[in-house]
């Protein structure tokens, strides 16, 4: 598995927010992807969209509830089509299967189309250590491979790179003259990769869906690299998380309507490719061998957990990233592992462990925008709250996200809230303190009141380091009720 840096979220996100280049890149996400998504939805009407989401969700619920059955059906039908299915409990097993197949078949060059699971497995260095050349062929993935980085977005992996960055990278790594014209850079990548496609012995792809009924792997792409990877080499290995299975070929209609619209606002992507086994005897071309690797790698932990199982319904469209106020501020890398954004804040703690990723569930304002945007209606805020609850209550101190002083404050607050007398007393003390302490705004009940940005008291000063507090109003609600409102209702 790639290095897990989720524990550095607090420092990484603080640094990311100060990066003006990243700021510009992230601004494009909101205005680009999310606006396109909304316009695609309004074209089909909100009502139709809502029906599709419901149907897709119910298909996912059913399939995941009977995952063992559908995996076996998938296995049988891939096998019947002449392909081979492999099961991998973790990243090491998946990498061992690919390595074995590559070495055994004398593979020298492999081309890859975009696969988030293979990022999770950190497959490339394993193959490279065997002397195999591995080329990422999605333009965004190619860029970050050349740069030695990791994807920062589920759909647009090189989102954080400016055209100047890419031009410098191509000049340094491909020996091309510096040219920041985007069209010409895309053409340069086409040229550089065309030969690799034709030389490759092995094509590796992910899967957006796998159909149990027919044993079909489905990839949704725009560039054409996915088609080349699954057509030109003599062997194709598809690698996918086991949750990607759907029961019937006919289920695809609904998912192919939801995924491109949610991801990029397209009615459909340029290409959808469906692979069922290797080339047949009288096909003109296509791989002689087809392998499908179904990966668990922590997913059964999510399956086992009824409160978090629905994270497995995710179709990796990235809509929740594009709309998230936290993702839009900090970008993908701050999340510290393969899956960023709101869904990543649920998935990473489950796949890498709560101890490492305990800060991620805190990285949300719980505004609920992710849930609204999700094409399969995953209740991400509920799961983030659940994980926060676990980080707060965990027996294991290493899984606790809060400091001792934060827990002390929360405990004290809870005790106050339970006793009206103490609460009133504390509020009175608070009002006095608010008047006496330096740097406090004037108490007021008006709507445009100023905020307390720093409380010069031991524990509260830390609390307010990254948060503003509303000042206490001159009258508490209880007082207002007693003095004014209750009179009104009686009168």
């Amino acid at each position, binding site marked *: 598995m790639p290095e897990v840096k989720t524990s550095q979220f607090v420092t990484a996100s603080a640094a990311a927010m100060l990066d003006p280049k990243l700021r510009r890149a992230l601004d494009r996400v909101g205005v680009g992807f999310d606006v396109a998504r909304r316009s695609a939805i309004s074209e089909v009407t909100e009502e139709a969209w809502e029906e599709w989401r419901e149907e897709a969700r119910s298909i996912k619920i*059913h399939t995941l509830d009977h995952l063992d059955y559908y995996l076996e059906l998938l296995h049988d039908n891939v096998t019947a089509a002449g392909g081979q299915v492999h099961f991998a409990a973790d990243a090491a097993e998946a990498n061992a299967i690919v390595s074995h197949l590559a070495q055994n078949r004398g593979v020298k060059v492999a081309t890859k189309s975009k696969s988030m699971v293979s990022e999770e497995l950190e497959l490339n260095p394993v193959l490279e250590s065997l002397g195999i050349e591995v080329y990422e062929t999605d333009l965004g993935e190619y860029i970050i491979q050349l740069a030695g980085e990791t994807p920062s977005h589920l759909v647009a992996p090189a*989102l954080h790179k400016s055209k100047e960055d890419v031009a410098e990278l191509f000049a340094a790594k491909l020996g091309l003259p510096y040219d920041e014209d985007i069209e010409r850079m895309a053409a340069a990548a086409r040229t550089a990769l065309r030969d690799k496609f034709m030389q490759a012995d092995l094509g590796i792809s992910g899967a957006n869906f796998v159909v149990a009924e027919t044993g079909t792997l489905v990839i949704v792409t725009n560039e054409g690299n996915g088609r080349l990877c699954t057509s030109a080499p003599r062997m194709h290995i598809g690698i996918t998380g086991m949750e990607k299975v759907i029961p019937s070929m006919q289920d695809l209609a609904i998912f192919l309507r939801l995924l491109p619209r949610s991801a990029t606002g397209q009615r459909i992507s340029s290409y959808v490719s469906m692979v069922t086994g290797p080339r047949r005897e009288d096909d003109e*071309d296509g791989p002689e061998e087809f392998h499908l690797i179904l990966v668990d790698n922590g997913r059964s932990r999510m399956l086992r957990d009824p409160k978090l199982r629905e994270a497995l319904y995710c179709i990796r469209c990235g809509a929740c990233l594009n709309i998230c106020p936290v993702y839009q501020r900090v970008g993908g890398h701050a999340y510290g592992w393969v899956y960023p954004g709101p869904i990543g804040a649920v998935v990473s703690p489950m796949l890498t462990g709560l101890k490492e990723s305990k800060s991620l569930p805190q990285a949300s304002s719980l505004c609920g925008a992710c849930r609204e945007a999700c094409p399969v209606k995953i209740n991400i805020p509920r799961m983030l709250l659940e994980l926060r609850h676990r980080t707060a209550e965990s027996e294991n101190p290493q899984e606790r996200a809060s400091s001792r002083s934060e827990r002390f404050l929360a405990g004290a607050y809870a005790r106050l809230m339970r006793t009206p007398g103490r609460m009133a007393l504390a509020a009175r003390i608070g009002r006095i303190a608010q008047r006496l302490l330096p740097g406090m705004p004037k108490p007021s009940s008006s709507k445009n009141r100023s905020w307390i940005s720093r409380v010069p008291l031991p524990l509260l000063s830390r609390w307010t380091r990254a948060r503003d507090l509303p000042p206490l109003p001159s009258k508490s609600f209880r007082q207002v009720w007693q003095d004014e409102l209750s009179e009104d209702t009686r009168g």
Partner: protein
Amino acid sequence: MADSRPDGKAANDGNENLPGRPKAEFLRSVREALGRPPSGSGRAVPPAQPYHRLEETLPHLEAQAVELEARLRENRPLLLDSFAEMAARGGWNVHRVSGVEAAIGRVDSLMSELGAARIVRSGQPVFDDAPVDNALEGRGIQVTAIVQGERAERAQLRQEIRRADVGLTGTDYALAETGSLVIMPRRGLSRLVSLVPPVHVALVRPEEVLESLHDLFLLRRLEYHRRGGEMGSYLNFITGPSRTADIEMTIVQGVHGPKTVHLVLIE
């Protein structure tokens, strides 16, 4: 079933001792995660409430397909209009022509506009109806046809496709809902003809146009069951040119696939 060895090892393949988890063990752990008791038979237990689509039998699907055909026939003129409109919105250059002669003429003039010197063409029935080769060759364009029945040497075929200026194909289906062509590579139809050359030109016949994704998957599913569980190795939706927006979210056409795509709709 391939999973025949009693020890459950090498569930994937008889000859090779591959790394990875045996199928039985993997599925057992999934089952256990779902909180279900292990199955007695060693095979997964089907859902108590069966999935409605998988319950449909071949006669069900046949009956739905008959209805579908009737609906398509009735709506054909409207369907062709909406297909042409959605295809244009999806990035195709759409040419509507009436009759085979006009189609051949259109392909011919298109090739001269494109300045094509070498063309690879798939061997599909549409080219029996609309034989384009003579006209093109008369202009001095080299046409390499992938002729059904002949097994072109693989490497040589690939070289021809790489050198071609234009790939010329028919289609298996066309979808009004998305403006897509759906092509199923097989004998006579290389996977690469519509992909590797910088320009793709496709001929579409009215009877190939379906209304929706639902229509397509119903027909494919029916065909799969009719053929006793054979899907064919490959199926591709093509909607407009190859695209990327991976650098600064700026859309560029023609990154790994064709930059320009033309569609000749023969009415």
